[in-house]
């Protein structure tokens, strides 16, 4: 590939921050560098919290007396609400801070905000920020007793989304080594894509493909362990799952795609293209869905779509991550 292609945003591996001396989860910032056994443990623990759609949700007292702060510097509905539900089902108290309208707009620095939250005896921060590395930054500056969960930072990572997608995939395909997963869309700007690829690789998925316009495909695609395809017609064939990504117009500076119509014609997931998947193939989308931009409306609501299942699974997976990252008492 040509050297004019854009490159990925990269942070140093965060493993030293994420695990404690015993190798247990301390903060959850990125999939990168986490041992496969820990990812498997997250999935198994999530299974313990999973309730079928026809069962009543049950609360467990695991985080009773703990306070979790949803610190969202960037808009989010699904992620914030499922984190909130997860925390509440673990019996934690939850503070939702919409930082777009909070004291930061009055000039308070992020560090001062953190000091104030520490003073309120908060135990865990769930952070969404438009800047890559924001959660790492907070980990380095926050009091020792606080755990930090990355709920999406810029173009870098969205590890809880990746884990809930792994959980959903596992429900359909217990043996990952035998499946092919395709990620379609804006690989370059997508923190979801980056975390998905890392998780798919760590959990031993047989084949990972990406389909994207050249302008939205990072130069290092092949070194990420994925096989790039130029067209949907080639790349979707025989796959067990396709993960559609949203066109992230808010992160695009310059012209990456000619027009939405053109993008849909080339990369939109239509009913006809869904037929190229394996017979049991499923359609996934992390949301928010832009109907008619990257995916046909009928596919979103169609029989192959597991999009709402992903949302529901998000609660159990986030319960697992919150409860595993909780600081243990030393008494």
């Amino acid at each position, binding site marked *: 590939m040509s050297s004019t292609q854009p490159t990925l945003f990269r942070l140093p591996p965060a493993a030293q921050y994420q695990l404690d001396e015993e190798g247990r989860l301390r903060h959850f910032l990125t999939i990168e560098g986490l041992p496969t056994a820990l990812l498997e443990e997250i999935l198994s623990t999530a299974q313990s919290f999973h309730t079928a759609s026809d069962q009543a949700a049950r609360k*467990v007292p695991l985080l009773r007396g703990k306070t979790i702060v949803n610190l969202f510097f960037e808009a989010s509905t699904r992620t914030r609400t499922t984190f909130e539900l997860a925390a509440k089902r673990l019996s934690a108290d939850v503070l939702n801070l919409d930082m777009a309208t909070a004291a930061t707009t009055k000039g308070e620095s992020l560090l001062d905000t953190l000091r104030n939250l520490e003073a309120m005896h908060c135990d865990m921060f769930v952070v969404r920020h438009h800047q890559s590395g924001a959660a790492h930054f907070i980990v380095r500056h926050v009091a020792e007793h606080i755990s930090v969960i990355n709920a999406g930072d810029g173009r870098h990572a969205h590890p809880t989304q990746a884990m809930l997608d792994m959980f959903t995939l596992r429900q359909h395909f217990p043996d990952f080594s035998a499946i092919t997963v395709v990620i379609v869309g804006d690989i370059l700007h997508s923190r979801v894509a980056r975390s998905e690829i890392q998780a798919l690789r760590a959990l031993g998925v047989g084949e990972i493909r990406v389909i994207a316009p050249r302008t939205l495909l990072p130069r290092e695609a092949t070194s990420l362990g994925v096989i790039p395809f130029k067209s949907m017609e080639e790349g979707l064939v025989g796959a067990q799952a396709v993960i559609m990504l949203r066109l992230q117009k808010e992160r695009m500076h310059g012209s990456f795609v000619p027009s939405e119509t053109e993008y849909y014609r080339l990369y939109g997931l239509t009913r006809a293209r869904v037929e190229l998947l394996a017979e049991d193939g499923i359609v996934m989308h992390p949301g928010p869905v832009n109907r008619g931009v990257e995916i046909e409306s009928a596919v979103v609501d169609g029989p192959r779509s597991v999009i709402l299942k992903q949302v529901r699974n998000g609660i159990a997976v986030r319960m697992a991550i919150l409860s595993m990252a909780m600081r*243990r008492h030393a*008494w």
Partner: protein
Amino acid sequence: MSSHERVDVGAVLAHLGDSVKSFLTTRGINLPVFVGIHTGGVWVAQALHAHCAVAEPLGMLDVSYHRDDVARTGVRPLKPVRMPASLDDRHVLLIDDVLFTGRTTRAALNELFEYGRPASVSLVVLVERPGREIPVAPDLTGMRLELGPEDRVKLQGPDPMELVITRPNDSLLEEPAR
């Protein structure tokens, strides 16, 4: 050196099974729900469930997430939980292997009530030992072991089921005799 003693529990289980049968008859309970607490309690419950030929499938609880020491031990994946859709107005027999501090029973009761409002809950244990830290008493007991606070008893199984009793202090007593 600590002493190990292995005790077969076949006879105790059979006797406990008979006690459960007459308990149900005396109380006039026709459709009991048997619930075993993972791991050893489920083995005991399976044996009692078969012995009493209960119609309702055996319930299984993993009470780890309701334990009061989970903040110290950390969260682990649960063993399979299987419960009837509702315990409303049901007579529940809660079954465990060893009753010691009573904390497991407390956690199990909390979890049980997440499934509804049972008409009654009775506690059945294979082994009762001293050391209660919570006001809990069994309704039916297979055997009572007079163990000290440092002694340990663990049910191994499921087939065959046997109790392993470890007395760390025995070595101190035995030492001078050698």
